[in-house]
Structure formats: structure tokens, C-alpha cells
């Protein structure tokens, strides 16, 4: 069974944490998932295949023209946060 501290480390790397009981559920789930993952490795000569990262070869791609386009205004960007100062999003001091 996968170590709980490792699961916590994986979660923390993605900037969140979970309750202890949730890690226990996840530990059990990982057992099932890792068994399913083994099915991937069972395919013969898999390492010689080129990994696929796009559904099909798309030849319909053009470089766009270098034209000025309308983007969001500063006001629009700040619309969803109440923490603002000098037209910027306010966060705790970064440099001590």
C-alpha cells in the first residue's frame, strides 16, 4: 500500500492539503487505481511506440497575423477580486 506521507507530499506539491481520513480513503483508492494502471504496462513492446499527445494530425493550422486585438481592460481583470491597490491585485508582501 502506498505510504500516506507520500500522498500528502503529492497533494502539497499541488498547493492543497486533505484531512487525515481523506488520505486513508485515498490510500485504498490508490490500491485499486494502481492495479488498473498495471494494465497499461501489460501491452507488449509498448516502449517502442511514440507517445500521442494530440488526437490527430491537424494540418489546418496557420500562424495568425501580428495584429493588435482587444483584450481585457485593467478594470475587467480586477472585477473578481476585492483586494486591489493602484490598479493591481493586492497580495501579502513578497520581498521582506
Amino acid at each position, binding site marked *: 500500500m502506498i505510504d500516506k506521507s507520500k500522498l500528502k507530499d503529492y497533494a502539497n506539491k499541488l498547493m492543497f492539503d486533505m484531512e487525515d481520513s481523506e488520505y486513508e480513503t485515498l490510500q485504498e483508492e490508490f490500491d485499486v487505481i494502481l492495479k488498473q494502471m498495471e494494465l497499461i504496462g501489460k501491452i507488449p513492446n509498448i516502449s517502442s511506440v511514440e507517445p500521442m499527445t494530440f*488526437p490527430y494530425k491537424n494540418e489546418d493550422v496557420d500562424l495568425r497575423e501580428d495584429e493588435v486585438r482587444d483584450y481585457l481592460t485593467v478594470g475587467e481583470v480586477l472585477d473578481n477580486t476585492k483586494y486591489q491597490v493602484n490598479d493591481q491585485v493586492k497580495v501579502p508582501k513578497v520581498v521582506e
Partner: protein
Amino acid sequence: MYRGKSITELRELLDKEELTSEELFDKAKKLAYAFQEDYNSFVTIMDDYKIKRRSDSLIKGIPYALKDNFSTNGILTTSSSNILKDYVPVYDATIYKKLRKAGGVLVGKTVLDELAMGGTGTTAHTGVVKNPWNKTCMTGGSSAGSAAAVALGIVPFSIGSDTGDSIRKPASFCGVVGYKPTYGLISRYGLFAFASSLDHVGVLSRNVKDSAIVTDIIKGKDINDMVTINYDKNLVESLDNDIKGKKLFYIKEICDKSQYTDKDTLKVLDDFYKLLDKCRELGFIVEEVSIDKALLEAVYPTYMTISCAEATSNNSNLTGIQFGPRGEGNSVEEIMFDARTKGFSELIKRRFVLGSYILQKENQEKLFLNACRVRRLIVDKMNELFKDYDGMILPASGGGAPSFDDSSEKLSSKYLLLENHLAIGNFGGFPSITIPFTFSNDMPVGVNITGRVKDDDLVLNMANKIESVTGYKDIYSKVGDIDV
């Protein structure tokens, strides 16, 4: 008068001036509110009727619903997650712009599985979506509310997104049509990304023609989504083409009855084979093919591996800093950590941890890259079959929607292939449509037709012909006995 009517029927009512589009909106809104407490299809129901008057589109004045993971300027868009519970976008998704320009009238934003990462309709921050045919059953997901709103007859069509089967599975469970076109046919600009190499936008409706009408309006290249393609073929005009001699295959390893014991599944397969006979009567050539079982069994883990890995990076913008509830802490890292800890539900966190595990340096080769390699093998196999065949036909699921406390054997590994094959359509970007074809235990079940990339016209043409012999065209749940 309104409930359950198709786009074509509503168009006729509007053109004959028997009803105005504002009246249609009021009726849809009334139905949306009437069913909200029991079925929970919507995150937001629109207060105001808004229409672009200068349009000659078939959907001008027709009400529709949009999944709540599409950006709508000035309208709450939550992706059914606490981390976006108050988020009001400042720009429009391309499809919302196109539908508005065509005169479509937005009735509401529909509930999804949180951040579109789920297949049950049970994980939204606003609660569980219930199946219109039986409230004790799931709708499937993640386009849960979009499927329920169409199945309840509230709107003739809705928009969903589909990364593994998120349109086509809830369509099967709710007895509606669910169409995921070729990858790139519809712009994803403004869709909150889940797994970019698998994400598609699509349509749910009560018949194939309505899905074709809507897709003709929203398809096409978009400068804001670089994977979009030009697609000049008219889908509606292709619907009635002759299909005599068109070749379909089904997969032996998935449809062989001898491997199953569940009565519901056996009934679905019996009905599936009867449907194949009807297809032959229509003029289709239908044959059984065999695919290496090891490859098929790898479909689900391959999907989980790729989607969870891509999801971890796509959702890294959810920090609670520029938008979303601000976390507590003394540094940027601390407030981000707190916002994400509080904002994501347990299920989403579990998927993210899995994605994080897959992307650890020591696992990248063994898990992530191998999954991408299996993806290629599966897609190559499909493309090889599509040289001889025009499409693949399979039951979309091995039974009706599961109940909320389902503990049947259908959840066991024996049913892994039958319940998870739809992700093949996402791996290769193949056009894929589910239409209702039978009932089992009083719950609808869909059949899926998948075809070659960019052959959307043929896939919808074949689905339209098959729909004519299922006996389940235009169905919806008449629950509540309400019409408006």
C-alpha cells in the same frame, strides 16, 4: 404546448406567430423553476429575456441551456465548484457568442460534476442532479444538468463538454441525444479546461436533427482556439443521405453476452443485437470485429492517467488570488494553499493527487508516457478499422442509470470495457453520438455511433437513419405532468 418540443417544432410556432420568443423563454423558465427543487439541473436560471433580433437562424428565439463551465460575461459561472462559487466572468466563450448572435435565448447555466471531473452528477457544490426518469438514480456526468434539462423537456437543446464521455454517457442515462463532434470542430475558447488534449464541446438534444442544426451554427475555426478546424460541410443537409452499403462494426470483446451475468446488461445486449438487425434492414452492413482485449482493458486507466495529469496543470490557475474566495495566510503561498484546500472537494483533490503522482519524475515514463503510447495504439487500431468501416456501433452503457446507492456487480472490473469505451472517441478526436435505443428496468439506455475524424456529416447521417427505427426519437420524461 411548449414542453418537449423540438427546435423545428418551436421554429414553426414562432414563424406562424402562435407564440413569441419571449413567451417561449417564460415557459422554459417556468419549467426550470418547477423542476429545480426535485432535479437540480441549474446553477443559475436567467431572470431576463435577452435576444439578438437581427438573425435568420433556425434557433432565433429558441431557449437553450449552457453548462456552467462556459464563460459568460456578467453571468455567474461556477464550474460547480466552491473555488469559483462567486466568479462572474468578464468575457464570453465563443460558442455563447455564436449562439447569442444566432438569436438563441439562454435560459440557464447547468450543474456539472465539479470542474467537469466526474461521471455521476453527484459532486457539484450546489448538490446532486437527479435523473428525470427516476429520482433515485444518477444522471451520469459531467454534463449532468445539461442532460437533465433536455430530458425534462425544459429546453430543446443544451451545450455540454466531453473529455471522456461527459456528454454521451449522461445522454444514455437520461434518454437524450448526446453528440461530441470531431476534436476542434467547435471552439473551446471560454470553456474551463479539464484535459486539453481530450476536451471537446458538444450538444445534447432530443433528436439527431436538432444536434445537427445547433452544430452547424457553432462549428468552425476560431482564432482563440488554435486546434479548431474549418468545416464547410452542412450537417443538416447530410442527414437524409442514402446509407445503403455503409459498413458498421461492433466489438466482440465488449458485446459478447457470455461474459456477463447481470440481467440488466443481458437485456441491453439482447436489444442491441435486435437493433443491429434493424440496421441491416435499413441497408447497413454490420459486422463483428475482434480487438486485443489487453488494449481495450487499457482504455480506462489510459484515460484516467492522461486526464488527471493534464487536469493538474490546467487547474493551477485556481489560486483564489485574481478570482475566487481569498484564502488566509501571511504569504502568497499560504493564501493560495488555504484557498485550494478549502475550495476543492475531496473527490477533486483525489484526482489531483493521482495526477501529481503520475507526473512525478519516477512515474512519468512508466505511467504518463506509456498511457500516451497506449492512446496511439488504440487510435491506430480504430483508424485501421475505419479504412474498412464507416463507423463503430456499441451500447453506450451496459444498463440504465445506476441508483445513488448502487452496489451492483456492474461496478466490478468485468464491466470495465462496456462502461468505459466511450473515451476512445476522445483519444482520437472521433465524432461520436449517443441516441436512446431501449429501456431497461424502466430506465433509458443509449447506443453510440462513432466514425472517422471529420466524417461528422456521415456519423450524423447514420445516427439519423438509426434513430428512425429505435422508436425512441423525441422522448422526454413527462414527470410532474406539467405543460406550459
